[in-house]
């Protein structure tokens, strides 16, 4: 556990539709670092981000962000907190009615009364940072997946947040776009001191960018550490996950009854 943690999760238990997603989960996100959350599909990585932002509440436990217990915050307090958080959605979630410039300007227009000239300067500055100043007047439908991801990133950093949450930022990107996003995450972390949390499956990318990795399975943290040593820590979880084995602690088969019985063969277990 970390002394200087921006996010501190203790005993988080969440049950959705009868399925236990988190089972007394403990986890710290160190301030000023890039932390990767990894784990098999359906293990609740995006759900964890939603708990951190207060979009979801657990059945038990606490989620503290900068000392504030997120599930107990009122809607007004939660919105105040979210002005200090950037969130990059898996599908970018750009507002389709607005062009790139207006998408990035949207949070500024909603929360400030800055003069138009200043808004323009801030937006162009953020678009320059992600390499898309020239695309300011394009509509979201005219962007490639990688460009849309970078516009969403520009929007997420428009308020210079203390924390950015990236939900699968590398999915569907070609190697060039993937490296561009990697570079941006690292640069933002180093130049602005932003704490970054990313949910990802791409091991090579995570090894390049992350300072700390959590491996989540069965509702708990099953392994954690820096990415270089974690892959070789000898645990069956990391061996299966980082080795890409089809079967292991994470079963290949979704839980089901006896196969022979399901096919109607005599002698199958009832």
């Amino acid at each position: 556990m970390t002394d200087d943690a921006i996010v501190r999760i203790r005993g988080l238990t969440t049950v959705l539709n009868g399925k236990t997603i988190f089972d007394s989960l403990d986890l710290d996100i160190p301030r000023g670092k890039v932390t990767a959350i990894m784990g098999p599909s359906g293990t609740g990585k995006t759900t964890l981000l939603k708990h951190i932002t207060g979009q979801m509440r657990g059945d038990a436990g606490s989620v503290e962000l900068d000392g504030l217990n997120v599930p107990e915050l009122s809607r007004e307090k939660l919105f105040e907190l979210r002005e200090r958080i950037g969130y990059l959605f898996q599908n970018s979630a750009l507002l389709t009615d607005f062009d790139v410039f207006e998408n990035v300007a949207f949070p500024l227009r909603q929360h400030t009364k800055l003069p138009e000239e200043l808004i323009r300067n801030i937006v162009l500055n953020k678009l320059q940072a992600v390499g898309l100043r020239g695309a300011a007047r394009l509509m979201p439908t005219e962007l490639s997946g990688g460009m849309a991801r970078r516009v969403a990133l520009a929007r997420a950093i428009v308020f210079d947040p203390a924390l950015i949450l990236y939900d699968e930022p590398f999915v569907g990107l070609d190697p060039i776009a993937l490296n561009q996003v990697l570079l941006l995450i690292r640069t933002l972390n180093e130049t602005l001191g932003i704490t970054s949390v990313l949910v990802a499956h791409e091991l090579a990318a995570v090894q390049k960018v992350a300072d700390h990795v959590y491996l989540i399975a069965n509702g708990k943290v099953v392994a954690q550490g820096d990415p270089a040593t974690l892959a070789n820590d000898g645990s069956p979880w990391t061996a299966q996950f980082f080795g890409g084995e089809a079967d292991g602690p994470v079963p290949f088969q979704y839980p089901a009854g006896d196969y022979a019985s399901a096919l109607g063969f005599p002698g199958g277990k009832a």
Partner: protein
Amino acid sequence: MSSRNDNVVVRSLAQIGACGLFLITILAAIPRSFRHGRETVRQIWFVGAMSLTIVMTCGLFVGMVLGLQLYDVLSIFGGTSATGTVVAIAIYRELGPVVTALLFAGRAGTSVTAEIGLMRATDQLDAMEMMAVDPIAYVAAPRFLAGVVALPLLGLVFCAMGVFGGHLVGVTWLGIDNGTFWSNMTATVDIHKDIVNGVLLKSFAFGIVVSLIAVFQGYTTPPTSEGVAYATTRTVVASSIAILALDFVLTSFLI
């Protein structure tokens, strides 16, 4: 079978209850939505002005067919001079607000549902939440207000076109005297009872119901293409039933 029917009844009641709670949420968000005045004006243009063509065209044809049918029936009793009166009263009291609301549900209600449903499916509403922007105040309330403002105005346009259509058939085509057509109409039509209560009040009530259903269905749709398709269909079905049922209730109080 009985339990399935029970489930349908319970689900329908739950939907109505959820819709009622959603209305309270929207009403509470309206003061905050005034910050997004430009968005409300944009929505009034979208659901109101963009519906003018269909409302004017349908109003004209409804008035024309009404003039034709009434002339045919009234000529049996030698009462064709009352054509204008009956056309006007039928349109102001019933056809104007009801048909406009049905057209509005089909033209604007469905597009509002589909738009909000797609915003839900593409995480745009969640993105607003994450940017500390309340989607109820920014998305739902302006669209709701736009419908409530636009429908009475569209109802008036429909009625004007309907009366014009009745005049076109009765006077220009079938030869009813122009002065008789207008004087009988103006002598019988009561501004308060027929225009204010008949057109404006009913359209206002229909505007609340149709806009609420359209926004609610879009906002609560499952984030899938099938979910958006079902929500759009439900907007038309629920709005149509609600308009006709509410029309009976309002008429029984207003008549």
